[in-house]
């Protein structure tokens, strides 16, 4: 069982990922594909004239501000554009794929976050009413049933909140939660870099392995990578044995990651 997350990053070629996955599926591997799509969300927001805002936490981490209009755009872009493209690409490569958001079948249940702290002009303020949440439960039965019937589930945010609304959740952590729930042997987080870099300015400085010990952060990584490391740690702690952060830009990005490319987290 293999869980793959593909971004988000405009430079990752989803068709190459899907072609690569089709080979693994035909070889008998069960695969779940998780996706984000920030570039598509931002692009659709521009077309609709919906301003996208980010907020910066006191620790410097930046996150999407998900007001009601943003959540609508996010749902439109992920479920109505990114996901169908992946499903069609897999179908074109001979693999049956079924697209799901966390709302379908209660696949991803989330607790709505009450408040955020953000830094505005150097001052820390409380932000309320953000439509984002933290995953509390995963409906593994739905995924196992689809996998048993030979489908590749193609999963993305949003998740379903207790109050029946949809909330945005982090797609890397969705992948980690699904890998843990399905007892996947491998979790591959594809990104727009060659892996975790020792020197962010040097593409060739990929760390072959990285130990995520204790709760200490890893220095010198950019924000998107920091969240990937949080997700990787969650998967490792939940017992997923093989967790890799690898380059999504190559011709066969998943096969390469499984063959040792990228950074293996331990």
């Amino acid at each position, binding site marked *: 069982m293999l869980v793959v997350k593909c971004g988000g990053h405009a430079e990752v070629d989803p068709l190459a990922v899907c072609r690569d996955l089709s080979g693994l599926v035909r070889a008998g591997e069960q695969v779940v594909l998780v996706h984000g799509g920030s570039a598509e969300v931002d692009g659709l927001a521009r077309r609709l004239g919906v301003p996208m805002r980010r907020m910066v936490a006191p620790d410097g981490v930046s*996150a999407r501000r998900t007001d009601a209009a943003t959540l609508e755009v996010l749902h439109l872009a992920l479920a109505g554009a990114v996901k169908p493209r992946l499903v069609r690409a897999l179908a074109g490569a001979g693999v049956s794929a079924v697209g799901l958001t966390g709302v379908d079948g209660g696949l991803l249940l989330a607790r709505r976050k009450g*408040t955020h*702290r953000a830094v505005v002009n150097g001052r820390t*303020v*409380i932000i309320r009413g953000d439509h984002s949440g*933290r995953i509390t439960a995963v409906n593994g039965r739905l995924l196992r049933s689809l996998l048993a019937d030979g489908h590749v589930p193609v999963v993305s945010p949003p998740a379903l909140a207790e109050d029946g609304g949809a909330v945005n959740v982090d797609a890397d*952590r969705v992948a980690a939660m699904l890998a843990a729930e399905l007892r996947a042997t491998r979790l591959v987080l594809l990104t727009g870099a060659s892996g975790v870099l020792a020197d962010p300015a040097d593409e060739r400085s990929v760390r072959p392995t990285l130990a995520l010990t204790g709760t200490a952060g890893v220095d010198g990584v950019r924000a998107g990578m920091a969240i990937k490391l949080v997700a990787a740690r969650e998967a490792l702690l939940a017992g997923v044995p093989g967790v890799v952060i690898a380059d999504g830009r190559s011709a066969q990005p998943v096969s390469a990651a499984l063959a040792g490319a990228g950074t293996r987290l331990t």
Partner: protein
Amino acid sequence: MVAILCPTCDVGVAVDNTVLPNEIVMCGECRSELEVVTTDPIRLALAPEIEEDWGE
């Protein structure tokens, strides 16, 4: 600068007049984190606890 009573320890907290709605200030006496719930007049309440992470 005005002094507003801390809702936790009842000691005066010095708050700048340019404070923002929902801004966090700290009580120097009891170290409580306080939220500016209104700015005219300035009123303080105990700030909600920090959630550990942000999602996407």
